[in-house]
């Protein structure tokens, strides 16, 4: 497995604009960048010129991660050439959240299942109901195939989230990457680090992933009260107080975290990254600094557990909410990951609007997470 990383910043341009040693061999390039810069055709053209034979996947972000650095409005990329692993790609268009389940199903259906071991999915972060997307995906994938990925971001703006495959990225797109191999080792882990606080509140009015009322009172009002001055930064600042839902599942009760994607002043409603069923109990959550960092290294440990050895490539999908809380110290969580995955691994990632990963290293069935650090690691003997 060969890799090469590059980054572009407004101040310095491309770190290395010379021809790549992997020019003819790179199979696949994973690109994360700020919404505004990633839209520019010239950047796509540059990347294409570096790696003319590779398939290029591009995602807008709420922050780019390269090695242990977190950047904004930059472009980071990792070009990969596997020894024997083959990749296949599928893409879908989506115009509203209602189509999420169907889109997930279609994507999974269009991937060849023969030899498929893992799927990474990168989806528009605003037009999608992540819960439904994941359900749709799982419906048409064999149960031994693991899925990880995320809902891409748009800084703290929540206006347009872009995904692209071999073209400049656009809104309303979902790309799935299928990994086909006999010996590729894939590890994954996902952990949060948030604590519940305050009274438990019942969701009294909602529709799919749109929340109207908690305990019969407008949910938006509650958030404004808690945020005080920072309410003017909604929906972004709403991420400081995610909601923890006590959901009934087949296996009993489980706690699921939901983050805000949008607010609607007229409707007094808030849109979350996943379903908000009526009758469910919810609690506000707040970050615990130490636990956020522990969560990141915990997720890295989980991914290490399933891969067994040191990873060669680690793809990080971390929630924008964590970045908003950690602020200047955001890189501490990446450093914590680095310490656990080891010095050799190439690290690339982004801050997202939702993370997709199985709940345990031993499981394959993925779920939509919020507010977590989610890590997918690869090693090819």
């Amino acid at each position, binding site marked *: 497995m060969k890799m090469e990383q590059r980054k572009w910043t407004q101040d310095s341009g491309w770190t290395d604009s010379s021809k790549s040693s992997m020019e003819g061999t790179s199979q696949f390039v994973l690109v994360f960048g700020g919404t505004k810069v990633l839209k520019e055709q010239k950047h796509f053209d540059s990347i294409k010129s570096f790696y003319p034979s590779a398939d290029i996947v591009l995602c807008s972000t709420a922050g780019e991660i390269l090695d242990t650095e977190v950047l904004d409005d930059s472009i980071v990329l990792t070009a990969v050439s596997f020894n024997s692993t083959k990749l296949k790609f599928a893409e879908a268009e989506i115009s509203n959240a209602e189509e999420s389940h169907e889109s997930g199903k279609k994507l999974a259906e269009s991937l060849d299942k023969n030899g498929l071991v893992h799927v990474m999915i990168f989806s528009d972060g605003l037009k999608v109901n992540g819960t439904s997307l994941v359900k749709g995906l799982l419906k048409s994938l064999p149960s031994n195939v693991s899925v990880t990925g995320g809902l891409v971001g748009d800084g703290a703006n929540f206006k347009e989230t872009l995904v692209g495959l071999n073209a400049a990225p656009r809104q309303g797109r979902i790309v799935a990457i299928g990994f086909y191999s006999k010996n590729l080792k894939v590890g994954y882990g996902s952990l949060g680090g948030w604590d519940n606080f*305050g009274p438990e509140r019942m969701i009294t009015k909602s529709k799919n992933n749109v929340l109207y009322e908690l305990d019969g009172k407008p949910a938006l009002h509650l958030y404004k009260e808690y945020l005080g001055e920072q309410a003017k930064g909604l929906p972004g600042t709403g991420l400081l107080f995610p909601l923890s839902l006590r959901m009934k599942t087949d296996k009993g009760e489980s706690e699921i975290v939901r983050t805000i994607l949008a607010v609607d002043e007229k409707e007094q409603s808030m849109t979350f990254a996943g379903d908000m069923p009526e009758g469910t109990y919810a609690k506000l959550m707040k970050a615990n600094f130490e636990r956020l960092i522990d969560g990141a290294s915990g997720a890295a440990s989980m991914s290490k557990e399933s891969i067994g050895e040191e990873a060669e490539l680690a793809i990080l999908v971390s929630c924008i909410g964590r970045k908003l809380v950690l602020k200047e110290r955001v890189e501490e969580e990446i450093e914590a990951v680095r310490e656990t995955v080891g010095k050799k691994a190439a690290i690339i990632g982004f801050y997202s609007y939702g993370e997709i990963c199985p709940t345990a290293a031993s499981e394959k069935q993925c779920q939509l997470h919020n507010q977590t650090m989610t890590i997918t690691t690869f090693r090819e003997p």
Partner: protein
Amino acid sequence: MHRTLSRQIKKFFGDNIPSSKEWDNFINSISETYAHFDEDRTLIERSMELSSKELGEANEQLKKNASTLSLLLNSTDEGIFGLDLNGNCTFINKSGAKLFGYPYEEILGKHMHSLTHHKKPSGDQYSTNECPIIQSFKTGKGTRNDNEVFWRRDGTAFQTEYSAYPIVDQGTIKGVVVSFTDITKRKMAEFELMKLSSVVGQTTDSIMMTDKDGKIEYVNPAFEKLTGYSSSEAVGQNPRILKSGKQDTAFYKALWDTILSGKTFHSEFVNKKKNGSLYHEEKIIVPVRDNQGNIRNFVSSGRDISERKAKEEEIKLKSDELERFNKFAVGRELKMVELKKRIHELEDELKKAAVK
């Protein structure tokens, strides 16, 4: 610039503040971090304050709810107690404790089956495996029972009707709630009723009960035997199934006028059996009133007097014959007297003629 930072710079550098683009960027970045820490602290302080206010209010509300609930529980005369999954008492209301004869505190935490339900009405040991209350933990289904006894603190028992339902929280059984009453009085009344109904069942008088509109609600076995109609055939019908046509409409009008006015009607009827044959019945019809004094039912009790009627008929026939015979005998006697009188007159005439 953040005020704390600007004070610190002044303190350490006085007026000799370094000036360069790097220095400015560096200081700005520190200033921003200071500001962010301030924001965080404000947010945390604000949310702590709000959350503690909300929790305080929720706590008040809970207390209020708990006291309303306890007021409700303690205001009913029905006994109510809760059990955890081990069968131990988690709460009991005042009436419940009173019915068992225990002080409230003494009963809490106790294994209720061992304390109040350990013996059957017969006095035999009652194992928890048989106890429907304990079983409702396992089955998750409610149960209702009125054939058991609960034992008081003083060793006496009372007959009880209880219902036991599992306490289910978020799909998990957390315990059982039992509500019960002392039904000793009701059981005694039922026993009295049972005695009475066995009398009705065994009497040779035919008994029929109708509702206010005359629809038959009950007939006893003697009715079935007398009329040939089974209970299932008769119930729901009108007593006119027995009508023979021997009584005129005036008779029935008098009957209804009497009983609807709340009085007892007593008369003899000629009625018709299922097989068409006629029978005589001496019948008494009594209106039955409810607690409000409204007539709800009519009960008739009848005795078959066909045999007596037949005998009376026979006696009448014989006495008529006797009468005729008597009349005949008396007539003859009178005629004899007349004849004798005539003979005497003739004899007297003859004597008189001979003297002349």
